[in-house]
């Protein structure tokens, strides 16, 4: 049981039991590879696409209520669609990284974005990183060839995406 509890703390009380499975504990705090990050990004893209679609339906509903007789689904230009998607993705990434260092995709894959000090990103860092990810998403592929499992955004901003399955670590920014 000692391995599960991590032994007694200095005050004599048992340390909190880690909820991370034993086979995954060795990976916690290490930079994630490209597959995990791509999967997390895919989940984020789905979330963004759902948000954009929901926005489109909301606009359509408003137009329908405004003039039901003349209602037609609005035609969306590809440029406008990409722009809207980019804006939503930027906001989504920025807010998620500032709040707890995780997007929904990161939460599903057990990842966390942190600064070079191992802390959650602050607003400037989160916004700049989100802008880089939106404008230059292909920079994520650099993880495959990087010696430190870093993307282009990570190299420029000295950030890291690490395996962090524990929920407490996500909320407090503490390492396991």
């Amino acid at each position: 049981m000692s391995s599960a509890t991590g032994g007694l703390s200095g005050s004599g009380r048992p340390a909190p039991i880690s909820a991370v499975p034993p086979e995954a504990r060795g990976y916690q705090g290490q930079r994630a590879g490209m597959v995990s990050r791509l999967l997390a990004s895919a989940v984020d893209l789905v979330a963004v696409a759902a948000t954009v679609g929901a926005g489109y339906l909301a606009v359509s509903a408003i137009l329908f209520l405004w003039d039901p007789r003349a209602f037609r689904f609005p035609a969306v230009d590809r440029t406008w669609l990409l722009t809207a998607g980019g804006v939503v993705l930027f906001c989504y990434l920025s807010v998620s990284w500032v709040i707890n260092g995780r997007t929904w995709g990161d939460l599903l894959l057990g990842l966390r974005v942190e600064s070079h000090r191992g802390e959650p990103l602050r607003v400037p860092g989160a916004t700049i990183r989100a802008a880089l990810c939106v404008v230059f998403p292909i920079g994520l592929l650099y993880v495959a060839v990087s010696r430190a499992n870093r993307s282009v955004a990570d190299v420029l901003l000295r950030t890291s995406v690490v395996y962090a399955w524990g929920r407490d670590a996500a909320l407090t920014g503490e390492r396991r």
Partner: protein
Amino acid sequence: MQRFPQQPRPSPWPRQGTAGSALAAADVVIGIGGGAVGFARSVFRRGRPPLDAVMSLLTPAARTAAPLAGCAAQAGPQAWLRWAAAKGRRDREALTSAVVQAVLTRVPDLTTALLDQLDLTALVAERVDVNAVAAQVDVGAIARRVDVIAILDQMDPAALTRYLVEELDLPAIIQSSTGSIMTDAVHDVRMQSISADERLSSVMDAILLRRRARRRAAPGAAGNGDGTVQAIP
């Protein structure tokens, strides 16, 4: 006067052979010795004048010798020896019973006194291989005989539960478990993605002819100090 049958009598000694013969001889000696002792005691207990003493000596001597003489006269030496042996056997059995009774009476006190003089703990520690004894103990059999229900009946489940909840911070465990490991499917997806990361990194490092391991440890993470981590299984 005691009469002795002429036909052969069963042997008073159940055991045959050398041991039986020795016991028979001992009984004969004891019988004769007992008669002699009784005679001597009769002689020396009298404290009368010499004449009375002489007369009194003759009386018990005659009483003692009369059966022997009668035996000798009627049955010969063999019957007399048989009579002496029977008397010796009774004396021996009485003496043995008295000795055994005396010894048994004193055994508890002697044992207690002996144990008081011994340091049994040190003696056992020095001369007994406790580990070898313990290795022969069937712990499983002992465990099967333990009445767990009776033990649990003596405990306070509510207090025990409160203790466990407080010491283990159970709410935090439940919260953490439900938050990070929602389902087994999520766990499998995460582990498979980690494995895929490892494989892809290995392939890319092989293509790029890299020999050194990747520096996966993020700042603040436990590693080897130079940013590298040990090989992950």
